[in-house]
Structure formats: structure tokens, C-alpha cells
């Protein structure tokens, strides 16, 4: 499965979820597939997609926070898995698009080729842990996890692609933050 297809498939199923997308191709491909107000595109600060989504999940308990993470991103702040298992936010869905390489920097291998990130999530205390390799498996898993209670974890195995085609995220960083605040209703619109 191509990562851009997997990202588009997940976005097509979302309604009012708050999404945080990891820096690099994941943010670019999410923005190109469906540029939502409630998408928080990270441009830098690798490793912090899940922590940002955790802050959203804890402060907006009535809405679901969804992370579009990468294997390299998650490995950089792996301790966050333990925080999420410990704090146990039911409105937290952690999706990792795992291509087993650092694709945004030229395809250097990551540890996820030999380390099962979903097993780590299960050990940390996520309650609904799944793995999808095909588009059909992704569809089934995402439908169930968007309807169920978390913290949930979905490992999506995707192709290793070094050169993506999605353009850069066109929004200024401050505008990305303000859009999310408006989308969750923390500032008045207009």
C-alpha cells in the first residue's frame, strides 16, 4: 500500500476528529489529500506529533484526537507510548504509517524493520491495537477504531518511497495553530 493512499483513505473516514500529522511527507500528503481546519500539520519538531495530540485529547475529552505518525517519528520519543498507556485517554487514536525507513531524508533504514511497534504499544497499555497491511485491512481497522474506545493504535505497513510528489504545506505555522483552535471552538470564528 502506498502511504499517500493510506493517508487519503483514513482522512476520507474522518468527521470532526482533531488530527496531528508528523513532519515530512506525512504532513504534505495529508494536506494534499484533504486540507481540513482540524488538521495540525507539523513542519519541524520531529517526534512530537503524539505529544501534541495527547495535549489535545486531554483538554478536549469530547472529541477524538488522531495522530498520523511515522516510524522514525515515534521512535524518537518512544517514551510517549508509556505516557499514553498510563494516562489512558479513551479519545486517542495513534496511527503509525510505517515504511521502515526515514523517507523524508533519503530512505535510511529505521529500527521498525525488526521491532514491532504495535507490540510496544500493546505492552504500554493501549487497549485496541491493530495492524493493517492491505487497503481492506486498513478500512476495517479504521472503521472499528473510530467507533470504539481507546487509547487505540493502528500500525499501517506502507511502501518505502523516498521521493514523494505532494507539495509543501502552503499555510504559515501560526495560521495552522489558529485554524485548529477555531476548529475545536476555543476561539470565536470571524
Amino acid at each position, binding site marked *: 500500500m502506498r502511504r499517500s493512499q493510506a493517508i487519503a483513505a483514513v482522512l476520507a473516514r474522518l468527521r470532526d476528529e482533531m488530527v496531528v500529522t508528523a513532519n515530512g511527507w506525512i504532513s504534505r500528503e495529508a494536506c494534499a489529500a484533504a486540507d481540513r481546519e482540524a488538521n495540525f500539520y507539523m513542519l519541524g519538531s520531529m517526534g512530537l506529533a503524539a505529544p501534541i495530540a495527547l495535549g*489535545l485529547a486531554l483538554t478536549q475529552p469530547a472529541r477524538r484526537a488522531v495522530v498520523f505518525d511515522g516510524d522514525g517519528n515515534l521512535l524518537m520519543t518512544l517514551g510517549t507510548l508509556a505516557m499514553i498507556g498510563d494516562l489512558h485517554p479513551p479519545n486517542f487514536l495513534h496511527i503509525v504509517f510505517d515504511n521502515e525507513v526515514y523517507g523524508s531524508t533519503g530512505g535510511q533504514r529505521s529500527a521498525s524493520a525488526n521491532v514491532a511497534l504495535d507490540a510496544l504499544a500493546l505492552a504500554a497499555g493501549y487497549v485496541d491495537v491493530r495492524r493493517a497491511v492491505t487497503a481492506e485491512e486498513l478500512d476495517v481497522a479504521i472503521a472499528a477504531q473510530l467507533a470504539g474506545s481507546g487509547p487505540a493504535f493502528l500500525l499501517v505497513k506502507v511502501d518505502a518511497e523516498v521521493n514523494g510528489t505532494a507539495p509543501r504545506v502552503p499555510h504559515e505555522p501560526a495560521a495552522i495553530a489558529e485554524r485548529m483552535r477555531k476548529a475545536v471552538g476555543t476561539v470565536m470564528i470571524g
Partner: protein
Amino acid sequence: MSRSAAFLQLLHDARFDFFTGVPDSTFQPLLHALESDPELGYVTAVSENVAVGIATGSYLGGHRPVIFMQNSGLALAMNALGSLAAIYRIPILLVVGWRGHDGSDSPEHALLGAVTPALLDALRLPFFVPDAASLPADVARAAQTLEARQMPCALLCRPGVVC
């Protein structure tokens, strides 16, 4: 009222309402008070850069966050502050315990203690260095700075100032 309770009251009066951070012995009684107050709540982060991420998410979710950290952790959080909080205009109050501020601390704090103000200057982050008498005014000034600048602002706290 204990010194830590008085400081928490100052933060509460300035309408801060989300607290995270990494434990620092400088803030021991303060963190104990935070952990035991279910209304305030406190999220222990695994590292200071992760705390910046969590605080950012809480701001997006409509809260006014505070991070407690040691100055050694400020060094760890430099990229998170520079490539996330500063450019996305996220106002976060950083309450930083300043180990090694006078050169008399243990060896691991000597160099980072000496350069801590320079680290904040390098990131172009505003900060105040309160003493016990100026603390209420400095909390108010920090809150005003967060509002005006829309970026992190630090209270650089020598041991004994806030608790």
C-alpha cells in the same frame, strides 16, 4: 500559606490552567502539591521536548499551559521550542529551575547553569529572573508577555524562590 501554595495561587490568579513538566528537585514541594490537587492536575512528561508538545496541544485545546523543568531540560527542549512553540506562536509559561546559577553546584550543572540565560536569548525567548520579593510582579509580567508576544516566556528560578 506555604511558598509553593502561594506560587500556585499566583499561577491560578494569572489564569494558567494546564500543568506539565519533568520533575526537578528545585520544585519538589510544588510538584507534590500539584500532583495531590485533582483540580489543578499535573501531567508528568517523559522529557522536556515532549512536555513542549503536550503543552502545545493543550493550548490548541483552549488552555493556558505551564511547563516545569530544570534548566538541563531546557537545553533538551531547544528544538521543540524553536521549531514548534516559537514559530506556531504558542504562549507557554516555562518555569525553569536554575541549577548551577552561581557556579557552586555539582559538575554536571556548571556549564549549562552558566549558559542558561544565553540559551533563552539565543532562541529569542523573553524571560524573567524573580527573587522572592519580585515573584508576584514577575508572574504578572510573564503573563502579559505571553499575551503580547504569543510565544513561550520563562521564569528562571533559583532554588528557594518559588518553593
